[in-house]
């Protein structure tokens, strides 16, 4: 049993913290929210130079051979600073899908580019029913000679507006078992029949509607086997759930710090508000939510890293972190008072991201149901 991060991870954490504190302050975050692109190529390039895109990749693809736990630690810092941009979609969703399902040709052609910061990837998974269950995949890909023709609409596709490649999760067969018949397609941004329409979100990130209208794609661009795409997506969803937890934990950490800064500074009734029991106990509860969330995230991440069975642990973590971070954020606002409600105060950045993150990749109810199944209930 070891609760400490190792020396390499400490290095990742410290260097990410120091890099992002200079490159990604709260003003930059606000600017990116307002911008159409939602990121800057300059920052993206610097991140690539630091090796971040390749954190989980083998050396042969330009990576640094890290594991998922290393990525978790990096994401926690990104959450702390509300890093805008397509890191999550490219690295957590894209690389995981390609590494899991891709053939060596696909890996060789894509992964080094991604590692260099020259390819942004996203995953088009969710549809109008807003569900991440296999039976919810209805966008269809019909075989036509050596090609497939894709039709339908995907929603909530992160960073699709700037993606070079979009991995589309489509149905190629209607079997009784809904996990069967799902196929992944690697689609180029220039493909005819692809249309990306940005949605406006309150979480500060960029998501889009992506429609496929008789989009013809060759079989070479199938990622993995035809009809057998679900296991890879299931893995991606597990990674994404814990990756999102890591971001939330980082954000929760910053929300606590902001709360303490105010509580230890502001005086009312002749004393620091941080000396009032009511405020102290709110902060103690925040820390309790935060530390349990942190350990739950690390626990699940270390199971993933060790390639141990972890469906239960992943769902436990996502359910707990989604609820807890929402609760801690509410306490942070309550302890901070009026100033925390203002746009100019940074607390609101976390409020929005924490709620979005809680709903993404399965909310607490969804994951509790999986835990119930894992308990044999």
């Amino acid at each position: 049993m070891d609760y400490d991060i190792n020396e390499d991870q400490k290095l990742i954490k410290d260097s990410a913290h120091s890099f992002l504190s200079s490159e990604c302050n709260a003003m930059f975050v606000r600017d990116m929210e307002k911008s159409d692109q939602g990121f800057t190529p300059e920052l993206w390039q610097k991140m690539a130079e630091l090796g971040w895109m390749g954190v989980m990749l083998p050396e042969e693809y330009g990576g640094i051979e890290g594991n998922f736990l290393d990525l978790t630690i990096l994401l926690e810092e990104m959450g702390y600073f509300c890093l805008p941009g397509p890191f999550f979609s490219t690295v957590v969703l894209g690389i995981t899908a390609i590494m899991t399902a891709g053939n060596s040709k696909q890996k060789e052609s894509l992964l080094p580019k991604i590692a260099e910061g020259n390819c942004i990837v996203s995953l088009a998974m969710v549809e109008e029913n807003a569900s991440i269950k296999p039976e919810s995949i209805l966008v269809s890909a019909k075989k036509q000679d050596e090609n497939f023709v894709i039709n339908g609409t995907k929603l909530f596709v992160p960073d699709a507006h700037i993606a070079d490649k979009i991995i589309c999760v489509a149905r190629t067969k209607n079997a009784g078992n809904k996990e069967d018949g799902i196929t992944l397609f690697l689609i180029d941004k220039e493909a005819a029949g692809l249309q990306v329409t940005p949605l406006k979100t309150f979480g500060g990130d960029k998501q889009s509607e992506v429609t496929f209208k008789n989009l013809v794609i060759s079989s070479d661009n199938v990622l993995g086997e035809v009809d057998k795409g679900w296991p890879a997506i299931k893995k991606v969803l597990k990674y994404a759930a814990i990756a999102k937890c890591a971001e939330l934990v980082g954000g929760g950490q910053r929300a606590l710090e902001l709360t303490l800064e105010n509580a230890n500074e502001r005086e009312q009734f002749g004393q620091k508000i941080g000396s009032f029991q009511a405020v102290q106990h709110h902060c103690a509860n925040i820390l309790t939510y935060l530390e349990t969330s942190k350990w739950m995230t690390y626990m699940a991440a270390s199971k993933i890293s060790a390639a141990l069975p972890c469906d239960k642990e992943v769902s436990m973590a996502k359910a707990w972190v989604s609820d807890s971070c929402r609760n801690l954020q509410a306490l942070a606002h309550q302890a901070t008072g009026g100033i925390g409600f203002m746009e100019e105060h940074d607390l609101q950045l976390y409020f929005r991201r924490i709620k979005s993150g809680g709903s993404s990749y399965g909310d607490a109810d969804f994951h509790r149901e999986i835990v119930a199944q894992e308990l044999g209930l």
Partner: protein
Amino acid sequence: MDFEFTKEDLKVRQELREFIEKEGTPEMFRETEDNGDIYGAPLGREIIKKIAAKGWLTPGWSKEYGGLEASEATCYAIRDEMGYMGVPFGFVAAHMAGPTIMRFGSEAMKKEWLPRISTGEIEFALGYTEPQAGSDLSAISMRAEDKGDYFLLNGNKLFNTSCHIADYHWLAARTDFEAAKHKGISMMIVDLKSPGITIGPIITMAGWRTNEVSYEDVKVPKENIVGKVNQGFYYMMSALDFERNFPLGRYRRIFDIMIKYAKETIVDDKPIAKNPLIRQRLAQMAIEIKATYLLYYNLAHILDSGRIPTYEASMEKLFATEVAQRITNLGMDMLGLYNQLVEDSKWAKLKGSIQKYYQTSIVETIYAGTSEIQRTIIATKGLKMPRR
């Protein structure tokens, strides 16, 4: 004991609802939301004047000053219904300044201000909070120096919502700099167009606007002092006992919208209303809303019985605002990923109203006395628990 509305109250509610359905325009509602839900801007003023003409702005006031001499129960019902219909319910003039003038103001002051308030002609902005005086209003430090026939004001106010659209500032300022903190504050009415006043916007996380207001050598005539000099703190506190309440109306409307949404939204071939988890949470909200209204109308009952609510007002405000947060949180959970989409986004559900109110609800448990302050009031005033 009787918890039913009178026929008359039901009729007034109905009339009011129909009236706003008829008169309200999308532009007016939009203007209202952008301004932090207080009227004052052109379209709001227009409809408020019409509402005032019906007597619904100040229904409890005497006819002399433009009221209907209605019971508090009726007043509370009207106020709640206005919230439900999307017409801002926090009128500083009608609900805070007016009643205080009525209780503590001179005859001249009453004659001058009350009719203009009850007709909806003028609106006040609240001028209590300062950077270092939030929960602790006795710490107010805006200086008002006695210069013979006027006071000279210098200092800053923070989070004074609607100053940029209201006519007058309902201002608490320090007029005695030597006295104990509670004993040196006066209430006064300040024309917001006075030279020396600068109003700067502060945008809330929910997108609407509040203000920081700076006073630099602003002259306020002495006749604008309300009641007695240096009694302002007590007037503020007394007003809170009378006026502290939180009509849940606009969140109740959100809830009704959610109920409809749950019935109409099909997921996995059945309405989400059939999901046992959703059913239970919606039912729980309906229960908590009922409990809120029982507390709310008890305040009216206490006033109608000639008594003054103390801790009961704190309890209602505490409970109602926490219910408001739970309603919007449930709404967000029900919408799932759609909860992220804002009003003007493609695919937005319910016009993005849930996430907007979800954000606004955060401040409800903070402004006008935080939940923590309310609990302390309940404990010390309601339960007489010891201070030491």
